[in-house]
């Protein structure tokens, strides 16, 4: 791991919120490519360690590895969020895979009204409005948040669980 990676590690360690790649570029006065490269070596250097590099779209942060969640919990008793309903997990799964996604599309997949479950997930900061659709009424488009990754203990959206059944192509169906 080089000095740039180490500097990024220091910055992320001391930040109490996720930082955008652009903010990291400004902090160490480097272009996007070198920051991305340094992040990749930091990610590799952290393999097998107690903390990991988390990435949600363009946002970067550090977090403890989910394997050690119970140890952290015993030591510090941090606040944890309440349980979600089955409907909430289904909706989260659709948002995670299809983001940015409109409520109409989510309801098409689940075949039921999803208004209240979406409001609940938004309130818990697991999903958020990430834009507006181009269709009539410019519907809200939902995406996941860094908190979603933290709650699920995922390093990035690339680490989302995949369906076991054959022939289930999820991302291919994504549409506005």
């Amino acid at each position, binding site marked *: 791991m080089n000095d740039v990676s180490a500097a990024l590690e220091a910055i*992320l*360690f*001391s*930040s*109490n919120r*996720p*930082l955008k790649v652009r903010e990291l570029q400004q902090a160490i006065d480097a272009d996007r490519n070198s920051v991305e490269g340094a992040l990749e070596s930091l990610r590799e250097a952290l393999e097998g360690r107690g903390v*990991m590099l*988390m990435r949600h779209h363009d946002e970067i*942060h550090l*977090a*403890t*590895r*989910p*394997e050690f*969640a*119970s140890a*952290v*919990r015993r030591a510090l008793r*941090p606040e*944890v969020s309440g*349980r*979600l*309903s*089955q*409907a*909430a*997990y*289904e909706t989260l*799964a*659709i948002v*995670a*895979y299809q983001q940015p996604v409109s409520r*109409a599309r989510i*309801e*098409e*997949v*689940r*075949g*039921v*009204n999803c*208004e*209240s*479950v979406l*409001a609940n997930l938004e309130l818990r900061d697991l999903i958020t409005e990430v834009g507006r659709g181009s269709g009539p009424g410019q519907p809200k488009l939902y995406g996941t948040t*860094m908190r979603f990754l*933290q*709650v*699920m*203990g*995922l*390093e990035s959206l690339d680490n*989302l*669980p995949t*369906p*076991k*059944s054959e*022939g*289930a192509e*999820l991302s291919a169906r994504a549409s506005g």
Partner: protein
Amino acid sequence: MDSPAAGAGRTLGAAELTVSTPVFEGPLELLLALVEREEVDIFKVSLAKVTDAYLAEIASREIPDPQEMAEFLWMAARLLLLKSMRLLPGETPNDEETELLGWEDEVRQRLEEYRAYKEIAGELLERAVQESFAFPPPARPVEAGGQEQALDVDILVAAFNSVLARIPPRPIVVQGRTWTLQEKLDLITDRLRDGPIELVELILESEDRLEAVITFVAVLELVRRSAVRVRQKERFGPIHVEWREVGA
């Protein structure tokens, strides 16, 4: 066009509560369960085969919401039509029947997609049950800029007022203890040394309104002494009271 999906896309009342019970939430979920019981491969099973089970299921259930009931019945009608077609094979399908065959395929695809998301949802649930949380660095004196705005006392007062009504008034016969400001100051200071506290939650711990007032005054006193930092991420969001390290 007029698939149950389009039906579900309609705006129902916001009051519709989604409760997680073994009850099926919509026609699609019920159909998926029946189809899976019949055959692992959704594309091999004939939807007509599950018609009877589907009808039996909706007959045995109480669906109080007429809109929701309509959606279940709509699916039932399509299934019955499909079944009647299958019972009289050999004839060349007319336009409506051709459309129905297309509908069956479309429903199969939707079932397949829905099943995939249900599986992922199951895995997410499993992760949640294992509590495999990834904890980010805690709030600490080194603050990332631009995140939080300086808080006006007005906002604290507004937050206090918003919850005061939820705390019972002081009973005529006082049973609980009576707090002094100094006791509250000591207690809150002790707790803050362990980590930040959310203001509204702190106030809601009070047993009666007098205690709530003393708690709130204690927080204001700590703000005045610059002993604490009060932060709010977004308007109307939670307000966190945090111990400020002396000399940091």
